[in-house]
């Protein structure tokens, strides 16, 4: 059933930042290895290694529990950190699966924007660490 995304859950390094999130993107992909051979009429592909990236747009903040404080405490750029994402703050379930893993903080902007604009920031993680593969859970 179609629904709007307005209650997504996101945590970074065990700290929930859901209320600071404006956008979450978690595209997962797999390398398509061309294994077309003679006799094939259509290109054929074999699944290679998977990849993913997590991009989160936040409302920036610097106080206790705010985005910059949490990211700095986690180690900032170059640090591997755990995350959890699900579409709703409700309990994990078959209708509300969660995705978790560990990623390298590859991009982050601590300050910046247009004058008078809402102070925003973007965080990007790429696969890294012991749980570099995305884990989908329904319980």
């Amino acid at each position: 059933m179609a629904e709007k995304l307005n209650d997504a859950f996101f945590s970074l390094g065990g700290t929930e930042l859901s209320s600071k999130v404006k956008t979450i993107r978690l595209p997962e992909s797999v390398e398509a290895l061309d294994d077309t051979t003679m006799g094939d009429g259509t290109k054929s592909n074999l699944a290679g290694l998977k990849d993913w990236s997590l991009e989160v747009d936040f409302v920036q903040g610097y106080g206790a529990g705010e985005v910059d404080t949490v990211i700095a405490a986690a180690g900032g750029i170059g640090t591997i950190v755990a995350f959890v994402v699900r579409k709703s703050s409700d309990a994990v379930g078959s209708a509300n699966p969660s995705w978790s893993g560990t990623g390298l903080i590859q991009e982050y902007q601590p300050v910046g924007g247009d004058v008078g604009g809402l102070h925003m920031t973007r965080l990007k993680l790429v696969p890294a660490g012991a749980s570099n593969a995305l884990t989908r859970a329904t319980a």
Partner: protein
Amino acid sequence: MAQKLTDAVIWIGQYDVSGDHNMVRLPESVEPLKATTFGSGVTTHKNIAGLKTAGCEGSGVLSYGADSIEDVLRSKFAVAEVPNSFMAEGGQAGELAWFFKSLLTEYTPVGGDVGALHAFTFKAAASKSPLVRGQVMAAKTARTSSSNSGTPVQVGAVTAAQRVYAALHVFAVSGTNPTLDVTVKSDDGVGFASPTTRITFAQLAAAGAEFKSAAGAITDDFWRIDWTIGGTDPSFTFAVVLGIL
């Protein structure tokens, strides 16, 4: 708490160019190095951290003349290791600050669309410096006292793998034969009973800026800025930011 960005502070060398800007960005990134190797059960790429990249970019209203934004950007263009400091909320003492040394790689001294606001843009990249997250230890203000100390702040200790960084920005100077000596000191208590000087900036008699650091390990966790002003009727408008990385 959500907030609008209206009072960002941008210091490039000895210039406060906040009032010229209507946009600033301070992106930081690290190169992801694909470290995936063979092994049973390998399904997903794995990355490790490569080198970091830091820089800044901004845009705003173009103006010409002495100490104008065009004058500032032109004077810093292609100059390496220029101290830059950035704050999001006005630059008061204790406020978070990000600072580094930069090389101004690109700027627009003239041009745009007919009828549009005549605007500048600039880009700078890190120059022999990391991007340091720290705080304002001495806010930008005019100081005339011959010898003074800032408020001690418990910034933290410095491990053997870390350094303490500080940037001094001197924006304006007046008086006869004025001199300014600024030091960064640490102590193990807020009372600063037995401070140790960790960073000594070069004496300044005119506007300027300097970025320095000292290696850890330093077990002291309280830090303070001290300054001595000399000359006849001297006044120095300056600020200091400090961080540990």
